[in-house]
């Protein structure tokens, strides 16, 4: 699971109000190279929750993202490369995503997060 995906996932248990962002518990992280595509990065940037990305990256051992980011930075190649790496090249292989409100843990195994709910949760 990439941080791009993490940025879009929330706990949707019935009644939960603050199910975002999910806290990452990392057991196994892999970094794999992916084509550097500034077009994609510029397209998605306005919809990325920066704090969630930064927190998620930190939980996976990546701590070179700036504290805040604005559109002007998209002209800066050095910034784009860091953004690219954190968003698309760092994969959570094993671990869990934890709901910030309820503490419910969603397991991640073989890189696949399991957000399925039990019957009494939906």
């Amino acid at each position: 699971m990439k941080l791009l995906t993490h940025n879009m996932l929330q706990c949707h248990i019935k009644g939960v109000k603050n199910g975002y962002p999910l806290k990452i518990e990392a057991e196994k992280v892999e970094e794999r190279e992916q084509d550097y595509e500034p077009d994609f990065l510029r397209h998605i940037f306005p919809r990325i929750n920066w704090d969630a990305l930064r927190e998620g990256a930190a939980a996976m051992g990546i701590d070179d993202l700036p504290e805040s980011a604005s559109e002007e930075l998209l002209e800066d190649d050095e910034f784009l490369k860091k953004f690219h790496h954190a968003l698309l090249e760092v994969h959570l292989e094993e671990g869990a995503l934890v709901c910030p409100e309820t503490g419910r843990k969603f397991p991640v195994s073989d890189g696949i997060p399991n957000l399925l709910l039990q019957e009494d949760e939906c």
Partner: protein
Amino acid sequence: MQDEDSFALVDALAANLEAWQRCPPRLCLEVGCGSGYVVCSLALLLRQAGAAAQLLATDVNPRAAAATAQTLAAHQVRDRVDIVLADLASALLPSIAGLVDVLVFNPPYVPTPDEEVERGGIAAAWAGGERGRRVADRLLRLVPALLSPRGEMFLVAVHENDPPELMQLMEAAGFEARVALQRSADEERLTILHFRRRPGETAGAAAAAAAGGAAAAGAAGAAPAPE
């Protein structure tokens, strides 16, 4: 052949290659990825189109998710596609609202008693409940929220699902609907439907989608299990 539905869907997707070369999709989502054949084919098509795109795939069946991972790895596109075990797009809304450029769904479409849909398990691959529409209709309600202003959706349907009515439903929701492909296989009459936002309604619809994301997510969460 039991996979004719997926083949037909991929053929319909492949017919869009040129359009995607001109206007590359950025974010794609397949709901119910099963074996992974469709999302893998889509990833390869987009690579061929030179599109800088990322893909997401969901399923409710852990075995399907694992199969999809294998299929993707075998074709060197595992890192383009993230797989999430989730009901429809529930865990992704509202964050993903208005971001999906290409949405693909080959739903469980076989008419069955409704109980079979709720039972889940392996039957989730085909059991479509009344008229085979129970699962497809739940996703269609989320489509206005999910799709980006330029977004499009491909949906597999069989005769029993009443494709003309599906088209009317989506037209009423502000979409252009057309039959992308029609094919008879075994006892099934397959139709691949193609929906896209009607030009001119784009801006308003996108704004509504962004604003309605939370409500849509609520509806998705409430639908599957009756209390």
